[in-house]
């Protein structure tokens, strides 16, 4: 219970901080929403990390949802923002379901590479069909109504901030429940032993497909929100670097608990904001150094560090990738 209690406090404190900062400094609403979006996407990627699979193409679901929002909003400007978001998530779930059928057959590097390849195809095609997609400059989205109400920029951002925050908390709880459910624990079993899963009468591919669908939906939601808050979608939201950033944040935050995704995203955004304001030109270097320090000092991420401090933490071996030079090794 002590651990849960800590995380609750952390969640409440973090949420209050988001709200207070957002209301006190209007400019900070967008970075906070963006940070929460990154957190939501990372929740999805973290689910894959728990299964020992690292995808370098998950940003494609943000891209699919974002472009769905943009296409719909441009075709029917009267559509409500909430509907647009739902449609975006629906599209990413649909794509995830189909792509999932193929990628769940792959593990380790090939899982990462196949996702990467598919996302790169999408990325290049979107960048190329200028007439339809606006090419690399993307598509602008006019501010839609939210729940039937038309907002000015400030009001729109406040509603999005509150909405995204609530979604983040809700999804965080939901994903944490999923992690601890039979299905979620079986998903983590893919990392360590698929043979056993099969000999328990379970289909490892099906378990992974479920998780994949989850993650596609989460990344999709983040993409839809991101598109709305930016008022713009570009192919860059689906680039491999963005996928890499999600993995980066997942490792930074740690996949031991759903809150890690948000802690990681917060650190990531803060480093970027700090660099943008005070150390223009070397923000990538700062991010790189942060990542190396985290990997060397706390390979289980910020959550791992916090859990180590709390006495009742369940120990978890640090091993998010299937092919490990140890037990259960594939041999010729």
């Amino acid at each position, binding site marked *: 219970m002590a651990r849960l209690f800590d995380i609750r*406090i952390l969640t*409440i*404190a973090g949420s*209050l*901080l988001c709200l*207070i*900062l957002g209301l*006190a*400094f*209007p*400019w*900070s609403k*967008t*970075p906070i929403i*963006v940070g929460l979006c990154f957190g939501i996407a990372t929740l999805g990627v973290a689910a894959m990390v728990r299964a020992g699979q690292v995808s370098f193409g998950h940003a494609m679901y943000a891209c699919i949802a974002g472009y769905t929002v943009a296409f719909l909003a441009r075709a029917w400007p009267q559509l409500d923002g909430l509907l647009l978001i739902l449609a975006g998530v629906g599209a990413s779930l649909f794509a995830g379901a189909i792509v999932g059928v193929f990628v769940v057959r792959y593990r380790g590097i090939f899982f990462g590479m196949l996702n990467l390849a598919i996302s790169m195809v999408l990325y*290049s095609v979107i*960048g*190329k069909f*200028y007439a339809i997609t*606006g*090419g*690399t*400059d*993307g598509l*602008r989205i006019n501010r839609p109504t939210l729940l039937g109400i038309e907002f*000015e*920029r400030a009001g729109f951002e406040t509603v999005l901030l509150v909405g995204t925050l609530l979604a983040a908390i809700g999804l965080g709880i939901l994903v944490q429940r999923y992690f601890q459910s039979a299905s979620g624990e079986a998903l983590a079993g893919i990392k360590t032993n698929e043979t056993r899963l099969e000999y328990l009468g379970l289909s490892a591919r099906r378990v992974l497909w479920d998780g994949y669908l989850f993650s596609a939906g989460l990344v999709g939601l983040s993409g839809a929100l991101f598109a709305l808050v*930016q*008022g*713009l979608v*570009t192919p*860059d939201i689906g680039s491999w670097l963005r996928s890499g950033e999600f993995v980066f944040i997942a490792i930074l935050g740690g996949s031991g608990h759903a809150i890690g995704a948000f802690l990681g995203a917060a650190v990531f955004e803060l480093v*970027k*904001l700090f660099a*943008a*304001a005070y150390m*223009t*030109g070397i*923000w990538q270097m700062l991010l790189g150094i942060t990542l190396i320090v985290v990997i060397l000092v706390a390979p289980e991420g910020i959550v791992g560090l916090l859990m180590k401090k709390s006495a009742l933490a369940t120990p978890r071996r640090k091993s998010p990738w299937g092919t490990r030079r140890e037990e259960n090794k594939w041999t010729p």
Partner: protein
Amino acid sequence: MKGNHVKSLHARLGALVAGMSLLFAAPALAQGAKPAELKLGITTFSSGPASVFGVPAKAAAEQWIEEFNAAGGINGVKITPVFIDEGLGGDKLLTEYRRVVQEQGVKVMLSAISSGNCNIVAPVAEDLKVLNVMWDCGTEKLLEDRRYKYVVRTQANAVTEMVATVVYLLKTKPDFKTIAVVNQDYAWGRDSWEIFRNTLQALKPDVKVVAELFPKFGAPDFSTEISRLQALKPDVILSTSWGGDLDTFVRQAGQRGLMKSSLFVLPLAESSAERLGAALPEGVIIGARGDHYFLHPELKDEPKHKAFVEKFRARTRSYPIYPVYHMVAALQAVADGHNKAIKANKGQWPSTEQVAGAMHGLEFKGLTRAVKIREDGQGLEDQLLGMTRNRAGYAFPVMENMMIVPADLVTTPVGQKSPEWVKTLKPDVLKSDRIKVYAK
């Protein structure tokens, strides 16, 4: 226990918020009182491929502001620049933009280089009621689609540039039959080609477009495109590319003799010439997106211009390129706009709204001929183009056979849409006596 936690948390949060407000809060200004300084936000690329423009422009801004402040500033108020990197991407740019406006009390922004970024910041500037001077981006659509109160552009737009390029091409080589284009695959490459093609079809309908190639932005290799162009043998090859892409294309085309068989038209190549050096052959039509050049036929010996070029060279070890001139133009316009508004305000320091009003209709002179900002916020900047020639004293080809096309002749009039307007152009425009040609 729990209560304590929450309480101390609240206390801590309260302190944090209070602290941060102190950190970011701007001193409130009484209407009409002279501020201690004029904070000027400038967005420019310090990272990414477009930093070939952003970095020299930043150096120019620093140089100009130093001198300007030393000479007393605007009515005694000094300019303090705050630079923002556009290379961070649209979302981070917008965040920074709003941070400096809403927290640091910046009232005037110079933004942006990228047309995409101009599209992002313009509506935000209007919402925040901050004067936004688009100092380098070329998209003409922005000011045609909507009338802005707080957004102006101090230089020409893509239509002015492309129509002037067609004019130069048709006046120097009236009889070509085929043309091919190799542009970067993004909005500028696509849109500039559309304007160019429509203009060309209006002025010389018999030209055949034999290839439209759009290699991806940042492509490292154009071998295949060059082979295809060699097979097609077009009379003219247009490329509005810039930066590393243009350098690579020119270099590979030159290495393979393509520049001997076709006439190249490179409207942005002035900014690459010094880098390319001997790799840029003679006889290429190049432009500079405006009425400025360090060897400007009318202004090269003007003391102000000459002194600037020398100082800039001493500072950066290179000749000024077009974004440098655009930066100076924007800064000059901001200074002049303030002075105009102060005069209109009976010597009192003006509100941002008054300055924005004064910017519309302002006529100012940076390092170019005078530029007038129209009532729709669009600047009328004449266009200078020329042909490359090697000349003693320069390690790279410079422009000769220069021509200056007056802006109002080749810019969409207020209230009209460019795609329709360029189609109404008549070949008579080529005969205008207002187009000045400088032999040599």
